[in-house]
């Protein structure tokens, strides 16, 4: 507010300058680029969690031992990932990356989760009535999963004036559906310090 009258003479020129310097720009950047704008959970965090979980699962001796014990590739179904943080975080952002890694590494089979199973069963039901009998998908041939993937996200926040720290803890685990025994654990902590 100060020096306002003196500003009068340069106001128009300055604002015209702003006018030319503030055009919208859009640039495509690599998805791998780490961008932190607000300090909240973002794509970089999902990627960090996915990479950590993938490396821990693929290198897990206990998981390998379980697969050997089974004598075949275990089938995994994705269950519930609970979010106890204060942010609306879509766990699918890293779960899908984990699924792709499992699929490509060929260490396990993936079977559809509840949401998609229902849609498949509906399609199969309709095939019984409307599809060529030679091509109808048969009932009772679904693969039963051996393991279910669960997870939980929590966060601890500490704030003081314009400073904030948030520690996100993401835990995933695979549980044997038959015995309830936990076969694998993966955990990733991401701590952020945000200053406004």
């Amino acid at each position: 507010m100060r020096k306002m009258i003196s500003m009068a003479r340069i106001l128009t020129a300055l604002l015209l300058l702003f006018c030319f310097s503030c055009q919208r720009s859009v640039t495509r950047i690599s998805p791998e680029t780490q961008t932190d704008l607000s300090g909240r959970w973002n794509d970089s965090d999902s990627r960090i969690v996915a990479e950590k979980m993938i490396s821990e699962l693929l290198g897990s001796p206990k998981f390998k031992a379980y697969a050997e014990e089974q004598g075949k590739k275990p089938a995994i179904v994705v269950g519930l990932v609970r979010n106890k943080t204060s942010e609306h975080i879509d766990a699918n952002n890293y779960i899908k990356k984990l699924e792709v890694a499992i699929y490509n590494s060929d260490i396990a089979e993936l079977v559809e989760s509840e949401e998609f199973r229902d849609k498949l069963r509906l399609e199969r039901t309709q095939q019984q009535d409307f599809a060529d009998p030679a091509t109808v998908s048969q009932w009772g041939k679904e693969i039963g999963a051996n393991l279910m993937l669960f997870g939980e996200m929590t966060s601890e926040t500490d704030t003081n004036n314009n400073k904030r720290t948030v520690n996100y803890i993401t835990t995933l685990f695979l549980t044997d559906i038959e015995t309830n025994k936990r076969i694998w654990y993966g955990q990733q902590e991401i701590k952020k310090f945000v200053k406004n």
Partner: protein
Amino acid sequence: MHMKPFMFRWATFTCILFVLNACASYYQTHVDFNSEFEQGDLSRALETLSRFDKEAESKTRFIYFSTSGLLLSVLGKYEESNEYFEKAFLFGEDYRINYVNEAASYLTNPNVTLYRGEDHEHLMVLYFKAINFLKMGKPEDALVECRRLNIRLNQLGDKYISAEKLQRSAFIHTLMGIIYQSVKDYNNAFIAYRNALEVYENDYARMFGLTAPMQLKKDLLESAWRTGFQDEFENFRNKFEMPDYVVGETTADLLFFWHNGLAPVKGEWGINFFIAPGPDNHMIFTNPELGLSFPFKVDDEKERSDLSRLEIFRVAFPKYIERPMYFQSGSLENGSATYTLELAEDVNKVAFYSLNQRMLQEFAKGLLRAALKKTTEQALRKKDDRLGALLGLVNAITEKADTRNWQTLPHSIYYSRLPLTEGKNDVKLSLLSQSGRDSTTYNFTYQVKPGQTLFHTFSSLETIAAPYRYY
């Protein structure tokens, strides 16, 4: 340079003609539409609004889109309504400051700038849009609006540093919870409800004296229970002192939103400021009645001298004018059960609070505008007294506050959740006037399928007074 007498008289006459229109507030320039809307003559209001279609390209296009969207929504034309709301949303997304217009506003008035919309108005666009989708049975589209709301809330939180600024919206968090719950995403519903509770208990209690609705507490408990958060369920049950609360099974739900009254409109008020020289090359702008004092450093001696000669001048500022609600309370009856419609958002208080919080900023902008106008006038007077006088007249005419706002929003939003049974359900809405003497009832019938969540909004456009002639 000297002006011919004829030209001077012509210019003065033109200015006087201009002033008759220029003095009108935004409300007054749309008085036909406003009176029709307030009287509930919505079809005619829509016809009147259609005559303003050029405003879709104007500096008030956000208000035009929002007003059209809301009116069409009240008329049950949800698809068309959402087309306008989408335009209003995209306007907010694409809005960029036009610095040429900003500069011009300091030499005329803020109405030459593009109206960007108040924070709460941008949130309300998405509220109405989401509810429209839900009424059309499109929950996936409503979820998109829900995610947009989340982004908007995050942006709002980042926009202000001061804790006294309104950074969070408890109502919008509640709405998000309701949308998530309607698609059985109980985990996200729980997060939204928990955030809403936190904002009600802190920001809303402190700023508006508004506490968390009982319905929110019940929904929070239900979403915790259905997500499997046993500890949280127990903790909140103890916190709410609801030890006997259990989550029941319902066939279907009705979410009933009551839009009571109309939001405030913006008017104008003026303050006279005195200018006096201060120490260290400062000029002090003061208003002793309001205890306002703004020191400005002016290094140029000639400019200080010019300003000293002004002594006193008037600056126009915006203010909100409340349209008090006609109805004080409402309830719903479904069979033998009665459900109170609880206040979830006081749009009126939100509007007043937001403007009050930035009043110092408004003062500074208004003073800068007035000082720039006056110094330009003084400089011109020295070259040509008549031209200077004419500019003084133009300056006085163009001195005007920004009185634009979205004026068809409700004054307050109330809501309740009712359990429904399969098949036909009769629900009675009872509204009680402020005086307590007038009770109005409306009957609604819903055809319900198991597992459905129905959404209904009801708008009471009545206000205690609709003094549209005086704004």
